[in-house]
């Protein structure tokens, strides 16, 4: 098999074309692949569709950097600090460009990706009946459940061009172990045409095979495996490092203005070569976030 283990730079270069639909941040608040998002910004990818439930500030950064044409999401903001300034500027003022929004709830984005993973055209649901989201989204349809005659909302499948997941460990073929919250990550990975795995650690196949229940996606779905420690900072990765709450607040304060956003981006994204340089720049602050947690009880296979 051709080698799948490449750098974030190569993964973005090879697998993310302008105009692609990209799912990321699918575990909600934790395990957000910021290293990937920043490389997308550095490579000046354009016209992307972002897909995800709650992206914390990853989507805001991509929007502010002008990479995004459409967002299909349940929530775009800064979870612990408030509104997302770049998203606001794009929607309210068209800065740096107008973007289209397909509003979702967490359940409908989960169902859309689950339908994609199942190869089903849509899933029927009762959530959002009567919500303006159902109308504003533009892709849903109301229908009658032919069994009961009741009203259901049909949520069509979403099939991302690329889903990006960050995990604790993967082998060289992309068989990936993720523990802690999964959110909609597995559906998003199985629904995608192509999967990029950012692994905190690359391990022998035998480590993965010692516990196949922890595998979130099998290597046979994975196009690229990146060995990228610290890929999720400032979001947390269970058993590896904690959330850098203050970083989110600093971002919130710094990006209130267009100039502030530009300066923040220059400092933390375009001004650093790659993730390793970013972690080096964080310095002792990064080391202080490490948290190896407590071991899971033994299970034998």
């Amino acid at each position, binding site marked *: 098999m051709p080698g799948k283990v490449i750098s974030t730079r190569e993964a973005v270069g090879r697998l993310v074309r302008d105009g692609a639909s990209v799912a990321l941040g699918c575990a909600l*608040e934790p395990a957000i692949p910021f290293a990937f998002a920043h490389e997308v910004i550095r490579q000046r990818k354009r016209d992307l569709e972002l897909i995800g439930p*709650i992206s914390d500030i990853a989507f805001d950064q991509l929007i502010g950097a002008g990479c995004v044409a459409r967002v299909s999401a*349940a929530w775009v*903001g800064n979870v612990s600090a408030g509104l*997302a300034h770049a998203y606001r500027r794009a929607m309210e003022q068209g800065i740096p460009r107008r973007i289209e929004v397909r509003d979702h*709830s967490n359940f409908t984005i989960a169902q859309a990706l689950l339908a994609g993973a199942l190869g089903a055209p849509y899933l029927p649901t*009762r959530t959002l*009946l009567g919500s303006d989201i159902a109308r*504003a989204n533009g892709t849903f349809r109301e229908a009658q459940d032919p069994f009961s005659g009741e009203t259901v909302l049909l949520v069509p499948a979403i099939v991302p061009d690329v889903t990006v997941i960050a995990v604790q460990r993967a082998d060289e073929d992309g068989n990936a172990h993720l523990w802690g919250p999964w959110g909609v990550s597995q559906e998003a990975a199985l629904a995608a045409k192509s999967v990029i795995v950012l692994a905190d650690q690359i391990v022998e196949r035998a480590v993965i095979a010692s516990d196949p229940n922890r595998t979130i996606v099998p290597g046979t779905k994975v196009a690229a495996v990146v060995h990228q420690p610290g890929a999720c900072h400032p979001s947390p990765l269970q058993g590896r490092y*904690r959330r850098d709450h203050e970083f989110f607040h600093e971002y919130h304060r710094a990006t209130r203005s267009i100039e502030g956003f530009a300066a923040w981006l220059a400092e933390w994204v375009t001004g650093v070569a790659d993730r390793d340089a970013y972690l080096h720049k964080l310095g002792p602050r990064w080391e202080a976030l490490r948290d190896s947690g407590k071991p899971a009880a033994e299970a034998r296979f």
Partner: protein
Amino acid sequence: MVAQAAREIRDGERVFVGMRLPLMAFVVAKRTHAPNAVGFFELGVVRDEPASELLYTMGDNPNIAGAIWCARTVDLMGLLQRGEVHAGFIGGAEIDVHGNLNTTAIGPDRARPAVQLPGSGGGADIASLAHRLIVIMPHDKRRLRASVDFVTSPGYGRGGDWRKRVGLPGGGPSVLITTLGVFRFADGSAVLESFHPGTSVERIRAETGWALRVASTVRETERPSEEVLAIIRQYDPQGFWTRRGE
């Protein structure tokens, strides 16, 4: 607000908790009258004991360590859609008299909003599908409006049997807790039940954007006990979530 919100959780219930004040309400309820309540977090986590430290998001490591179930969002939302979740908390930027919440956008044109808000998250699902919705908001005339610009999370629509007509299961908001008072819903409309210590019906009327209905039994909101205040101070000693006197 936290103390009142905690009172809304009954023992043994499954509750979609959410972050910020609801999370603290869950902590208070668990440690006082509802030790068997179970907390659902929409990223796929279920806890029967609150996390050991203050959370900034539901995905913080301490909220996962010691959880009893770490599943997929859709698993928990499925239980919600099955009608197995008793109560859920949400807040919003705007609410109307029928309990419809807007967390999406201010302004008449969704595509060109005056103020872009973050969106639903799981709020619209909880509002659609939980048995009871507990709403927590700062009290402000621009937030408690006669009608909202966008119904993100449906309450009672235009009142009456609206939920049934649009196909929503039972449920809807049972209570609106603001920084000034507590509202219950009767026939799908908010009725002031109590005003917090230090405020009054008249002040609430002045700060509310709809024609205020007041319960005949209106009274002062019960003060939090010393026990409850101690739990809140212990959990959030810096006042990160409660510093605005909430």
